[in-house]
């Protein structure tokens, strides 16, 4: 008997939650939405700080592909109804290899902002549905286009804390489009 896709999905989510909680020293709180209409597996926030939550979708694979002799690839494909596609700085994807031998997530895993992912993951639209395909090398020395999004499992907590801190900073800034208007100057209180 093989692990069902429901079991696999749940285990990957548990693993992700564990690395976030332990890796942040308990600072990160995770909540699972009651409904999945917006394709979020978790809402994540820093303990005691509300309003800056990060929504995450967790995707996993239990085997790696050999695309060439010595290179193992993580290959994940999925589709999304076009009206449910979310491009937001607060919506991120998490991709990982769930290693059946080690019974845990393998290194590296990938944390990718939704807007970047939707641009880079070979998007194809057919009959109102978007199809995405992510193929990335798992080899330590690889420098493919997903390389900047690599994270080690034990660093996930700190990485998400950084992401949340950056989002908080960027929210404090006025929209960049404002500066494109003629004659606009920025005044700040000291």
């Amino acid at each position, binding site marked *: 008997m093989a692990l069902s896709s429901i*079991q696999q999905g749940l285990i990957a989510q548990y693993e992700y939650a*564990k690395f976030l909680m332990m890796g*942040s020293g308990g600072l990160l709180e995770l909540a699972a939405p009651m409904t999945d209409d917006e394709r979020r597996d978790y809402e994540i926030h820093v303990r005691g700080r509300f309003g800056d939550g990060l929504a995450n979708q967790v995707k996993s694979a239990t085997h790696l592909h050999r695309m060439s002799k010595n290179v193992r690839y993580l290959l994940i494909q999925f589709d999304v109804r076009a009206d449910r596609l979310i491009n937001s700085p607060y919506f991120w994807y998490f991709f990982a290899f769930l290693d059946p031998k*080690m*019974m845990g997530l393998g290194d590296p895993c990938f944390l990718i902002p939704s807007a970047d992912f939707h641009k880079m993951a070979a998007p194809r639209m057919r009959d109102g549905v978007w199809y995405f395909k992510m193929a990335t090398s798992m080899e330590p020395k690889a420098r493919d286009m997903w390389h900047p999004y690599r994270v080690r499992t*034990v660093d996930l907590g700190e990485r998400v804390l950084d992401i949340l801190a950056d989002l908080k900073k960027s929210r404090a800034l006025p929209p960049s489009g404002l500066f494109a208007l003629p004659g606009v100057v920025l005044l700040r209180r000291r």
Partner: protein
Amino acid sequence: MSPRLARISLVQQGIIAQNEFAKLLMMGSRGLIELAAPLTDEERRDFEVHLHGIFGSALAVQVKSVMQLGNLGGKARYLRTRITVRASRLVSDPLFWYFFAFLDPKTMRFADPTFLVPSLLMHEAANPTRRGGFWNFTFEASMEPGSHDRWVPNRVNTLDLGKTAVSIMRAQASSLPRLRERVGVGVGSLLALPDVVLVRKH
């Protein structure tokens, strides 16, 4: 300071340990084991565990974890945890088991070995003491590979947990009626009676 040096809360630790246990059972049994979390915790079960499609011999498991090992004065590392149970809630049943593990803050997973202990053995061998309406138990097991303490037979490596749980459930399914007759169902409630003491033959 790196946030990783801070400490997670006990609630977070409990959830992580339960999820880790569930993962190891599901993956280690290749999906054969199904787990369910009771809606209420009055019987002190964290999970009901059964084999896919086979009902009636489900194990109830309580998961206990520590994030620090002691050394009891020597070099050997010990997993030590204390449990206090209201006497009226003590469940001694062949299908009720305890699971003990060290959740390693560095690797962020359970370290080997872990321990699967039947409640009947636990309540007998884990230094039971009764104070008022409560039983106290102290589980103290060496984590060293060469150790020969009393908990060695209950050691299970994390990657073997699924297979071990499957064999326990299969064995229970065949021997349960005999075992229950011998031990008596509801020993827990017997121990809850005032002035009842546990006497053993040596």
